[in-house]
């Protein structure tokens, strides 16, 4: 299983990586929207994407739309923008506002990854 972390803040990336360490997944990082899209297009499609909304150059909203068009990956929004977060509740597979409870994120990711795994098996 592969998780792509799209986050411009290096500390937050590190933190998310620590959280991911508790799960049996391979992680990849992207500090901005371009590299995230580039990563999805060039390498193996991730099973899950952790996406920040405030990103340099291409905003998280645009990255979200771009990923949704080309990829079946689950997308979990992780943002500090509590004003923008509500509109993604219905669109994304999960929305977490920073600071989030790490165990809550772990629970959510585990369940998303297992459904994804099952779907992959059925196919």
């Amino acid at each position, binding site marked *: 299983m592969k998780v792509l972390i799209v986050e411009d*803040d290096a500390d937050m990336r590190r933190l998310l990586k620590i959280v991911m360490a508790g799960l049996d997944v391979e992680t990849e990082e992207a500090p901005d929207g371009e590299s995230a899209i580039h990563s999805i297009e060039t390498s193996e499609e991730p099973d899950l994407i952790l996406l920040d909304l405030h990103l340099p150059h291409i905003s998280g909203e645009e990255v979200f739309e771009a990923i949704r068009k080309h990829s079946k990956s689950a997308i979990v929004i992780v943002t500090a923008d509590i004003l923008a977060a509500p509109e993604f509740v219905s669109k994304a597979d999960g929305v977490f506002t920073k600071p989030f409870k790490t165990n809550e994120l772990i629970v959510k990711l585990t369940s998303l990854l297992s459904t994804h795994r099952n779907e992959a098996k059925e196919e």
Partner: protein
Amino acid sequence: MKKIRSLKIPNTFDSDDLRMRKILNIILLSLAVISFVALASAFMYGDPVLEVLSDKDAQPIIGGSIVMLVVCGVLIGLNRFTRIQKGVVGWILVIVMTTVVTFSDHPSELADGRSLIFWFLPILLSVVVLPPASVFIVDIIVFAIIAAFSESSKQVNIFAMFVIAGASLLAWLGMSIANRALRDARNEAEKNRAILNGVTDGVVVLNANDQVVLANPAALNMLGSAIARFASTADDDRKEVGGRVLSFSWSDVKGVGNVAIVRDISRQVEVERAKDAILGVVSHEMRTPLAVILMFSEFLTRTSSSTEAERIHANAQRMITLVDDLLDHAQIQAGTLKMSKAKFSPSSLADTVRDLLSTRADEKNISFNVTVSDVLPQNLIGDSDRLQQILVNLIGNAIKFTDQGGLVDVLLSSNGGDASTWKMVVSDTGIGIPPERLPDIFEPFRRASDYATRTHQGAGLGLSIAKKIARLMGGDIQVTSTVGQGSVFTVTLPLEIAE
């Protein structure tokens, strides 16, 4: 009056002159009408025109009337020219009247005073159409005429002269007082107008039919052409007109009408908006690093259980609560805070609140109970996150202001006889709120405790946010308090039962 206005007296900007010209116009018109009637009456009996013209008795009437008509016509014309010095037309009329009186009767009757009454004509006329003091000049002329027609100096009727002089004095006195009163009233009105024109606030007066009867330059400048569509809408206190935000305060002034004070608050509104925008950005930019601190310290407390890491975590948590409060406040101010609606259970809301705050209550050895009444339906519709926020703010406050060993009770229940609402009651045995502070405890950045001592932490936003959220939900928060005994906060909310 309309007729007189249609004669178009030029505006000379000298109100005294204007008034006299108007009076002259009225008198000249009246004289012209009288002369015309006299002229017409000579021909009224149906006698042949030539016969009337040759009648010796009729000739002076016809001739006099024609002369008067011509004189009145000329004077009415002259009265309209501003180039003619003020008073000139008046003097001409007075002299004409004097001449008419002089030649209308037998000279000896004038001299011995039998025709005394006729002299009052030019005298009263002069008082009205000329400056009051000119009556004395007319007196001198009249005296001269009387003297001239007296056969000898002994025959001069001193008594008649005294009556004329006395009447003149009285007329002069009366007119002077009236003029003074007029001038004072005019000065007062001008002063008021100057003030009205000078103030930077707009002043608009509407009559009972919502027609603008007065607007000062500031109001015209602010409202522009919109003043035509101006109407008294007493409840509308803010309006955007031509890109400017105007505030209106209305008052019903007896005898004047609906008076609106209009103020341009664009700048103020702009500052408010900028402030809210800054607050939003700052809050967001602060949340990201704070989240990192909070979550790393959370890791540390779990892996190394150090007291230092715990303190970092607790303080970061406090900071984030503050930032969230500021953000909520900014959203409330900007009117962008939205309430969601979803099914929730009051008892799980109570459980969450109990979990969140029992540690804080335990630290102060406060007995903390959250009870859900049986009468409340199992599931309701509402924004449970925001309801939780209201409760956390109220209970947090209650714990903050209650001393060691005190009591904080929370009850979620139906609202007595009112089936359309339900309530959440937070009561404590805290320090209470002095009655004079009660009105503003829901104002942002204010608290009933003393600022100077800073014995209690917080920005003072909790109650303000709680009240605003309750209002956005269509409910409200009431408070009763006794100093030294405690406070009771009652949140009433519209009841929506989930099916």
